[in-house]
């Protein structure tokens, strides 16, 4: 039988929202306080949802050791305690949480093979959250 499993992870990072395609005034008008050249930070909460048949021998969709291990190396080690703007991934992409969500989705989609990736969600603050399912509708 098919089940969906969701695991939450925490990481902290700083960023500045600024687009080289916009004038200084446009950047200030678009991004407001987030355009501060010194940047600012968040405690991000990442939710990863995978799905698949529950293995009859183990009772699992996938072994959490595999999921945790992949996320640790491919995502947390890469983004935790970093200034996102300084990372090669964001030299030409504004590090909004929208872009971060789809980037993390792509990393998991390419590299995590133990279950089917459904959704990546990120809470930037308790008030703002984002979800991305690679263009598919998100199941409630």
């Amino acid at each position, binding site marked *: *039988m*098919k*089940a*969906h*499993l*969701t*695991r*939450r*992870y925490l990481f902290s990072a700083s960023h500045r929202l600024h687009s080289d395609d916009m004038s200084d005034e446009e950047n200030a008008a678009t991004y407001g306080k987030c355009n501060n050249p010194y940047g600012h930070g968040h405690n991000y909460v990442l939710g990863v949802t995978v799905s698949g048949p*529950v293995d009859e*021998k*183990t*009772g*699992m*969709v996938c*072994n*959490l*050791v595999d999921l945790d291990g992949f996320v640790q190396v491919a995502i947390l080690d890469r983004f935790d305690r970093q200034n996102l703007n300084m990372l090669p991934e964001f030299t030409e992409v504004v590090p909004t949480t929208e872009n971060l969500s789809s980037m993390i989705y792509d990393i998991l989609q390419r590299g995590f093979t133990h279950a089917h990736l459904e959704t990546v969600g990120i809470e930037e603050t308790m008030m703002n959250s984002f979800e991305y399912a690679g263009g598919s509708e998100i*199941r*409630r």
Partner: protein
Amino acid sequence: MVYLTRKAEFAASHYYHNPDFTAEENRRIFGKCNNPNGHGHNYTLEVTVKGEVDPRSGFVVDLRQLKEVLNREVLDAMDHRFLNKEVPEFSTRIPTTENLAIAIWQRLASKLQKAQLHRVRVYETPDLFVDFYGEA
């Protein structure tokens, strides 16, 4: 169609062990969860039902009936229990969060009147939960 979600909490212990595996395989696959003395969690259960709103009562489901079914079928059977030893489903299935969601769905699905079960969500911890939609 309106969706209604009822939450409940229960505390239970479990361990993961498959008698078809060797002791070494059990330790490798299940790690710390293989400790035969068990360990426990505070589980949070969310049961979502769906249906059309009854024009006379304004209800999707009689919440009192839903609570009674939930208490009888799930909480009385699982709260403050050792899942492996006291809940019949888990004499043959490993009491993972996945199998717990499936077992709770199976206990509830046939007992609900009118409203249709949409989703069973079981939180093992705030950072780990499983959703089951009744899919084969």
